[in-house]
């Protein structure tokens, strides 16, 4: 899955990657890779500006630490980020269920 196909969804995926607790940039990328079974094909350098954008929006917060002599920036979800993730997740599940129903020709809502 390429970067262009992810436009509009990357922010929610980054928030989801931070749902389990604080992570630094590389760990976020690894988390996304693992949760998607390695199907993401992103230039990973572009994840970092996306994290800054989320930080500026108040959805995550970043802090510095020193690991192995290198400075490392770690991010965690804010309360607003947690709310945003819930909203985006619900919207995505509704959207994907609707499109899936239309593409597969089954009635909506589908019987449980």
């Amino acid at each position, binding site marked *: 899955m390429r970067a262009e196909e992810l436009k509009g969804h990357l922010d929610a995926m980054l928030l989801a990657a931070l749902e389990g607790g604080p992570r*630094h*940039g*590389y760990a976020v*990328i690894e988390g996304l890779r693992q949760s998607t079974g390695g199907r993401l094909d992103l*230039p*990973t*350098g*572009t994840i*970092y*500006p*996306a994290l*800054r*954008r989320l930080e*500026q929006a108040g959805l995550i917060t970043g802090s*510095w630490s020193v*690991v192995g002599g*290198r*400075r*490392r*920036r770690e991010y965690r979800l804010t309360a607003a980020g947690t709310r945003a993730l819930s909203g985006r997740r619900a919207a995505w599940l509704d959207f994907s269920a609707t499109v899936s129903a239309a593409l597969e020709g089954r009635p909506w809502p589908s019987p449980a």
Partner: protein
Amino acid sequence: MAEPRLIGSYLAVLAAELPAPIVEELADGLTETHRSYLRQGLAPDAAAESAVAEFGEPQAIVAEFARVNPARHAARRLLVIGPVVGACWTVALVTSRAGSWPVPLPARILTGVALITIIGLLAAAALSTRYRLAARAGVAGCIGIATLDAVLITGAAFTDASMTWVMVAAMMASTARIAFAAWSLVPALSR
């Protein structure tokens, strides 16, 4: 462990365009990516090539950071509210017959040139894909527009004897813009 030359030169390209804290964060990520390839059994140089390829073109990363630059956002907002404040001043100066004020021609020309320069700086900050250029132009534009507003307010206060409500509205619009420019400078200068 020595850093491969390829990673060093890649980070040097980023360091030429981005602030040190951002480069430090990218260096940490790139080092971790390199180590990941080493753990997979690649030779150091091959691991460096793979890590750099995975990270993407440095110019693309710089352009993405330029898009989230606080100075760029401030410049865009100032360009949007600029015509509103400008319209307030146009109406105020026309209704106050500012053409007859005792303002020397060089001062009028200087004000016009300053305004055009500030608009140019803000436009450069709003559109540039180069982080440092956008940051410097944005900060200069914010300071410039706040200074120009202060000059306009002071000039009108000392020159306009009638002080109509339209002039007061224009002065308030400029005061609000000064406050916004100052508020925008805080995150722009902290990067």
